[in-house]
């Protein structure tokens, strides 16, 4: 074997090795799907998805695995988070992209990064020691509520919404803005009649990503929603979410109950896949236009 051949073989081996390494992500995804489904499948098969996903009673002691209370709980906290987080986040993104000077932007962006980096358990703790007592004093009740969960989630999804929307607004072609200003529109008219519509897909993607983050969040929600798997009559009442129920019950669940928690995991995974596919689709649209 000549030196050249030896070098070639070595290069080929390295290439193969790197391909193997790059496939780890794919293997990981396959294993995650495989094992969550393997554990959750028996309960899903035994009771059927319709009965499980529309059942109104979640009571593992009596083998009632109706997930509607959890679905309603997750939907409520996510909607509250979006109602508060989207206007704030998009507003802040417009501010950063269009109004803030470079100096102010340089001060705000690290702050938003810090907001993104704070662990979810710290958000939960903050909600527990400040927001829950505050709600208990002002609106009464326990304070542990879907509203409390939604408010904390709103803060947690702000960084995602802000950074993705800001990128989308900045990615709009300069000519759009110049043409609008040249036609006599002022800066604000240009922002809301030209720039925001042009960045629509990107902003929608930001909202959808924020939604995914809100649905998937666990620790903060466990600590402040009260983990009561009943269909809530109002937002001020305690409730339970899909994630919170898994987190709250996994440690003592066994047998079919444990399987049911994995079924909740399947539902959650399915929701996240749909949400992320929508976000990817919107990103694709943004690139095309």
């Amino acid at each position, binding site marked *: 074997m000549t030196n050249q051949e030896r070098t070639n073989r070595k*290069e080929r081996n390295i290439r193969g090795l790197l391909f193997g390494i790059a496939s780890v992500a794919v293997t990981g995804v396959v294993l995650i799907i495989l094992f969550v489904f393997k554990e959750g499948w028996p309960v899903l098969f035994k009771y059927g998805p319709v009965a499980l996903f529309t059942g109104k009673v979640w009571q593992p002691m009596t083998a009632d695995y109706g997930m509607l209370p959890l679905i309603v709980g997750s939907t409520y906290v996510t909607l509250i988070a979006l109602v508060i987080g989207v206007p704030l986040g998009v507003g802040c993104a417009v501010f950063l992209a269009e109004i803030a000077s470079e100096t102010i932007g340089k001060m705000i962006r690290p702050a938003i990064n810090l907001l993104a980096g704070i662990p979810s358990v710290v958000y939960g703790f903050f909600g527990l020691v400040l927001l829950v007592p505050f709600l208990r004093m002002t609106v009464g009740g326990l304070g542990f509520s879907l509203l409390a969960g939604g408010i904390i989630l709103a803060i947690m999804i702000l960084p995602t919404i802000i950074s993705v929307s800001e990128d989308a607004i900045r990615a709009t072609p300069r000519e759009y803005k110049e043409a609008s200003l040249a036609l006599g529109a002022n800066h604000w008219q240009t922002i809301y009649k030209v720039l925001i519509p042009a960045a629509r897909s990107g902003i929608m993607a930001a909202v959808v990503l924020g939604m995914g983050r809100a649905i998937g969040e666990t620790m903060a929600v466990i600590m402040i929603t009260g983990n009561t798997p009943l269909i809530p009559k109002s937002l001020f009442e305690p409730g339970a979410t899909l994630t919170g129920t898994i987190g709250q019950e996994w440690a003592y669940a066994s047998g079919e109950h444990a399987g049911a928690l994995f079924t909740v995991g399947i539902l959650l995974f399915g929701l996240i896949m749909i949400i992320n596919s929508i976000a990817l689709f919107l990103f694709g649209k943004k690139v095309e236009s």
Partner: protein
Amino acid sequence: MRRITKYTQGLAFVLLWVTALITIGFLLLIVFFILKEGLPSVNWEFLTAYPRRMGREGGIFPTIIASLYLTLASLVIATPIGIGAAIYLTEYTREGAGTKIIRFATEILAGVPSIIFGLFGFAFLVTFLKLGFSILSGAITLALMLLPTIIRTAEEAIKSVPNSYREGSLALGATKWVTIAKVVIPAALPGIVTGIILGVGRAIGETAAVWLTVGGALRLPISIMDSARPMTLHLYTLAAEGLSLPRAYATASILIICIWIINTVANLLMARFSLKLRA
């Protein structure tokens, strides 16, 4: 008419300022509230003493070690895989079906909620592979979670290395791999390190996935097969079970300070990196 549009603009801009101020306000409220209550309890004893009576008294020493141990172990697994994948994606393939699948898988990993990672780690690593509740189970789970960040930042860093570097090396007779190992990677190193540092932040802050895979034993982890309780999980236990509020505040303060330091270092590195490439 003109005056009205002017007023509208003024009002709109005020509102936009307000959204930014509220966002910053949230951050300041959280950080100051927790540090104000927590920092007075942070002292040398708190950092180096063992907890007593389930954490009601004493310090948090084993949980700090558990956090560091987990972070280090997960990075030892995720870093070579992440950089290797990034090299493959940027240097060895053209965009095609193969890269699309790998990228799609990375996107999925980035979006999967941590509790699902936890369920997976519990079913696959803890139970099926019989690794038990251990640092190892937690580290493998965390490594999967960190992979997207490390791959993405490493890819960006490698892509931003000018092509002239590669051409120069190849023209001197270096093989492709030698070029990558001796030229491309060193030039991309600050960017790659930024990704790893961001991974450190994520690993230290993670709770749910770690809870389902590491367990939560409140003792000093020695072997990689030991169960442990990192700071985040300890904070959860202290707060949720009402064991000790002052210690919970102090633990939360330490977590915030860690994340703050990590973010600052990452920001500095990124600023220097883009400067270096521009020069």
